[in-house]
């Protein structure tokens, strides 16, 4: 178990390091970051000033090591546009995004796992067909369009839910659905396929032959094993949601990291852009690592060797 954790930690660390390099080099995609930062109307003196103050005149490896060293201490630099500490801005915006993504994944899992289990218990039944239809339709709905449609019907026509810039829990309902529904088809299909496979396994027959109650067979013996791949998928999808929140947050004007990213990109605020990509990637790495740990807990074949 210790070996497993260390191995995963090592990989996570290496991935994080690589991601930081890619993220850092992002600002050089356009060529000269000082020119990009200064804007089109800037004079040569202004560009030189920015180059000096941001240290873009130093060799790139030195810049990277400096940036990484500060980032490790929690200092992500200053925003050129907002004139604020980037870490501070990100920390104030992060909670909204985490709440949104958390609600979204909660919505997705509470919808898709029971549906997938029900579909697997009775293949080709009405509920199975319903689940399949939902999956096929869900996979084809563009999330931003779905968000606007929901806004139109639930917010404008029926006036059931607030449509934007609301920090109460009702304000998170539509965004969470818009962000979460896209995950449901995948999770549902995986749950269904896993349950179908497990329910036909020999150990389920053993459990039935012991005379265990159907619910015990289903939840203790079947779901526990079928859920293991779902955990990994849910973690990956949660990571995607953090990135995908950019679309939903900009539609519902939720003051989170996604919305910040959108504003930042439009302003061309390079250091802030770097920082956001880095933070979201690190979150993804953290979440998938936690999912690996949860799976090790669920599956003794990983845990006990």
């Amino acid at each position: 178990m210790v070996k497993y954790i260390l191995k995963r930690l090592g990989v996570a660390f290496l991935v994080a390091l690589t991601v930081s390099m890619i993220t850092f080099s992002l600002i050089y995609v356009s060529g000269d970051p000082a020119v990009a930062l200064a804007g089109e109307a800037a004079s040569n003196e202004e560009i030189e000033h920015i180059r000096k103050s941001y240290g873009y005149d130093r060799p790139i490896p030195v810049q990277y090591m400096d940036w990484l060293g500060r980032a490790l201490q929690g200092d992500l630099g200053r925003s050129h546009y907002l004139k604020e500490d980037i870490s501070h801005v990100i920390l104030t915006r992060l909670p909204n995004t985490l709440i949104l993504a958390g609600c979204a994944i909660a919505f997705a899992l509470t919808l898709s796992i029971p549906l997938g289990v029900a579909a697997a218990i009775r293949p080709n039944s009405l509920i199975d067909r319903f689940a399949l239809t939902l999956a096929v339709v869900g996979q084809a709905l563009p999330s931003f369009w779905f968000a606007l449609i929901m806004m139109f019907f639930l917010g404008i026509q029926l006036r059931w839910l607030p449509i934007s810039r609301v920090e109460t829990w009702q304000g998170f309902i539509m965004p969470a659905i818009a962000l979460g529904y896209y995950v449901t088809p995948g999770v549902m299909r995986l749950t269904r396929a896993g349950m179908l496979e497990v329910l036909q396994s020999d150990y389920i027959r053993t459990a039935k032959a012991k005379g265990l109650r159907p619910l015990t067979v289903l939840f203790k013996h079947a779901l526990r094993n079928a859920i293991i791949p779902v955990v990994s998928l849910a973690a990956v999808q949660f990571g995607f949601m953090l990135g995908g929140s950019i679309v939903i947050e900009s539609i519902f004007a939720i003051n989170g990291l996604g919305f910040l990213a959108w504003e930042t990109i439009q302003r061309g605020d390079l250091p802030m852009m770097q920082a956001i990509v880095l933070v979201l990637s690190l979150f993804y790495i953290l979440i998938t690592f936690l999912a690996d740990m949860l799976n090790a807990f669920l599956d003794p074949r990983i845990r006990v060797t």
Partner: protein
Amino acid sequence: MSDTILEVQDLVVDIPVSAGMLHPVQSISFKVDKGETLCIVGESGCGKSLTSLAVMNLLPKSANCTATKLSLDGEDLQSTSERRMSDIRGNKMSMIFQEPMTSLNPAYTIGNQLTEALLRHKKVSQSEARDRAIYLLEKVGITAAASRLTQYPHQLSGGLRQRVMIAMALMCGPEMIIADEPTTALDVTIQAQILHLLADLQKEFNMGMILITHDLGVVSRVADRVAVMYAGQIVETGTGKQVFENPTHPYTQGLLECIPIPGKTERGAHLGSIPGIVPSLVGDLPGCHFADRCRHVMDTCRTGTIDLSPSFEDGHVYRCVQTPEQCAANLKKGAA
């Protein structure tokens, strides 16, 4: 001693498949007394496993199962609710499967899986269940039983897992135990150990047992009664002694020729084999199912239904158009 524990009459299993209706089990009847071992012998696909699953009421949902009588200890199993049936399974009647590698849930400890049936069926405490598990693990020959309880299935070898499966089946002290080819997946060296262990435990706990196996050597030693199955039917049944000493049905004769018997088969003698393959059981099959592979086939074998003969030596019956004397003569001819 001779009170019947399990009685099955005219058990029929039908499974709809894309090509029509599959008849894997066609009117099987047998009974098992307390403390008696019935061995069901036959090649793969003859319906042995489905028969045992039908008795346990564990057939897949698509299968239709009927019987004129199916009773355990006098209780009719056909009309019982699924709820009552689950009270019986693992409690009064339990089953051991042929795949020890996959028959244990990988996510739970041996101890958890051993005790859960007992906790479900009997009013016992956790520690009592644990004690019973340790007692039975020792009974099935597992050393350091207490420490095994915290292990997971993947940490055990196939032979150990099958011993755990046997202990698990015995947890509630069943009156009837069904072992479906419990040794096919194991190493040859372990096969005999496990079968002898089963036979010993069966005598010790005075259970009725159905042992489904290919291993005729074991059958000859442990069987009180033998039922030979071919293509969904019982083709011959009798006591172990009757069937082994006086095999009557041509299929039984062929089976026995296929195995060397120590002291009987001469060194260098050719072992027999049965040519041909098992017929498809989709749709109705007229006449004798073995006709295509039988050396003594006649025109009358191909039509009508061939029923089991009347008992010709105290419960020894067979399914063939020929008389016992003709059959016995066939055996000599074949051997010559």
